């Protein structure tokens, strides 16, 4: 049976260790937990905050699409994805992907696959608010993110 991913899009922060515990407690056949978390950088103290906009409904649906695909490609026992929106300060968490499996390959690959697709397909947009008070600007999409996605095809 393929795992049913947990997908959450929320403004609040999240607790990595609590999420891992929820996925592993009571299942002693899990041998691997791969965790990716993305944080907000200060860009050398020049960034005051990131403002994350999203498309409610579609954001969850797009993450779920790639998470379900990962669960069919690899023998994954559990997959949790949490993405925040709203104003996020440097040092704070933005995104969390946890994949659990019996062995490490599926956990690593599954987590990376979801992250690569999330970057290019999930409708989130970052706006940078600068320390120096210059006008806030939208972050440009990176070609390297699109390439990261294409390597799985």
């Amino acid at each position, binding site marked *: 049976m393929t795992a049913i991913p947990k997908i959450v899009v929320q403004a609040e922060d999240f607790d990595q260790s609590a999420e891992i515990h929820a996925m592993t407690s009571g299942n002693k056949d899990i041998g691997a937990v791969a965790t990716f978390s*993305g944080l907000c950088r200060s860009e050398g103290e020049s960034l005051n905050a990131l403002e994350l*906009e999203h498309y409610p409904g579609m954001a969850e649906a797009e993450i779920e699409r790639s998470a379900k695909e990962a669960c069919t490609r690899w023998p994954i026992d559990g997959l949790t994805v949490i993405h925040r929106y709203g104003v996020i300060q440097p040092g704070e968490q933005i995104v969390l992907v946890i994949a659990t499996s019996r062995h490490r390959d599926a956990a690593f690959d599954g987590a990376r696959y979801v992250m690569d697709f999330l970057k290019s*397909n*999930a*409708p989130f*947009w970052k706006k940078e608010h600068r320390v120096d008070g210059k006008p806030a600007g939208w*972050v440009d*999409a990176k070609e390297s993110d699109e390439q990261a996605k294409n390597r799985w095809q």
Partner: protein
Amino acid sequence: MTEFTVKMLYFSWIRERVGIEEEQLVLPQTVSTVRELLLWLRERNEQFAAAIEFPDIIRVALDQEHTEHESSIGTPREIALFPPMTGG
């Protein structure tokens, strides 16, 4: 295709340039593909002309699904326009 009303949503800098988050819009019969929709929207006013200056980079979702520019629109309930995504 006959005329129909659809909920339009705009995000990120497209929302800022057009000056609205969402609206109900009657699409004319002449608009049948996503690309035709973008070109038609661009003619509405200066704000839309600025937002859709380069139609090729605009992403369009029909009923919350990514859709190619050459695809036909059909009769979705919701159409969203947004720039390339920068989450994660």
